[in-house]
């Protein structure tokens, strides 16, 4: 049986892992290679590296980080953040990434998803999506945000995920901004709606505070994988302890 995946996410700024709350206020959380090795030992199913480096000059560092990680970690690696062109994606995949996650650039140039899927396959093409619950004229809508959560697009989440699937995305990482960094639990309603609307895997992101939050999003939220950052970075829980908990509650996970 295909198991549910537990995926630590490492936000990387100029080669260092950082963790922010609600997208801002980042604190240093360590060396990416050391963190990646630690998660491999704990039994993480995949790793996501998200490059939040703002400057142009800093962006080449990510490919270098990926190159060094694949020398010591023999597990799937997804890299996102700052991928604007097919050349950016190519550089990261050639460095050793299994998948690339495209976020803002896919909204601005949807053809990018198709181009990456054409060159590297749907399986290597991930849509990263920052979703926000906002009120417009007193009515709540689920809206896509870009540029690290700073810019509203007016695009509805449900429309965008279906379009991205058609364009060539093979997976969606749904990050809900309202819950990100709060440790108050994933957005079960939105995750479930997205997962049910597409036929490709959906990774839930934003809000993990406990193993129970992961249990809920993998069951009631219909997520295929759960991504988390801070609860792992600061050693509140190990990946192994979360998986033990999920196993006891009947969720299929890979135990190591």
């Amino acid at each position, binding site marked *: 049986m295909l198991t549910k995946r537990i995926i630590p996410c490492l936000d990387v700024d100029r080669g260092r892992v950082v963790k922010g709350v609600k997208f801002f206020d980042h604190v240093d959380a360590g060396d990416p290679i050391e963190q990646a090795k630690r998660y491999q030992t704990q039994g993480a199913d995949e790793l996501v590296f998200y490059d939040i480096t703002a400057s142009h000059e800093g962006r080449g560092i990510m490919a270098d980080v990926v190159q060094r990680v694949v020398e010591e970690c023999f597990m799937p690696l997804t890299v996102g953040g700052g991928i604007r062109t097919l050349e950016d994606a190519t550089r990261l995949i050639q460095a050793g990434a299994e998948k690339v996650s495209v976020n803002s650039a896919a909204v601005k140039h949807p053809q990018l998803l198709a181009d990456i899927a054409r060159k590297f396959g749907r399986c290597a093409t991930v849509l990263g999506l920052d979703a926000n619950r906002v009120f417009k004229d007193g009515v709540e809508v689920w809206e896509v945000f870009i540029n690290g959560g700073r810019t509203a697009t007016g695009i509805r989440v449900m429309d965008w995920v279906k379009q991205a699937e058609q364009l060539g995305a093979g*997976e969606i990482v749904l990050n809900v901004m309202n819950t990100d960094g709060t440790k108050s639990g994933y957005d079960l309603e939105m995750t479930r709606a997205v997962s049910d609307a597409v036929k490709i895997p959906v990774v839930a992101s934003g809000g993990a505070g406990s193993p129970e939050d992961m249990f809920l999003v993998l069951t009631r939220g219909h997520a295929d994988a759960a991504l988390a950052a801070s609860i792992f970075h600061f050693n509140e829980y190990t990946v192994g302890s979360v998986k033990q908990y999920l196993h006891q509650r009947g969720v299929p996970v890979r135990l190591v």
Partner: protein
Amino acid sequence: MIGILDYGMANLRSVQKAFVQVGSDAQILKTPEDIRSCDHLVLPGVGALADAVTTIRNRGLDQPILEHIRSGKPFLGICLGLQMLFEVGYEDGEHRALGVFAGKCVRFEVDQTHGLKVPHMGWNQLNVVRLSPLMQDIPEGASVYFVHSYHVVPEDESVVATTTDYGGAFVSSIWRDNVIATQFHPEKSQSVGLMMLKNFARM
């Protein structure tokens, strides 16, 4: 020397570094002459089957691959490197592949029939049908990493080495004589996968 074939469409670094990790001399190969000089040949691959086969033919690599297989020297195909060994693939039309094995490569239909997600992406278990050299000392029911939308259907079921369940059993690896090929990614399957690569290097 273990040669990993570079035809411009694969994540070769992961495969090479994984072999290095288990103590093998693993080199990236690019030319027909390179293929003829190696003992163990690895054919990895991601992307579309038709593009991969066309690229391999245009670079004159198809005959050296087939010669290597016929010579009896160890051969390992990974993912697309498994799918290409069959006669025909059905990804965006019908395409002739390398035809080492009779059979075809088809898309999962589990999304239509079982509501399962495609690509089949993540860790899933191996059911051993025949114990290939790759599987020596691998625990029963071990999990490995998959990421694919298509799977192979051999005409000759005696080549099946393992199956995996995803809305029904599909062929997750094959083995005939010197040829082993896996739908999963040993190089991404942590300690279990590294042990498989070590087993291959010993063939």
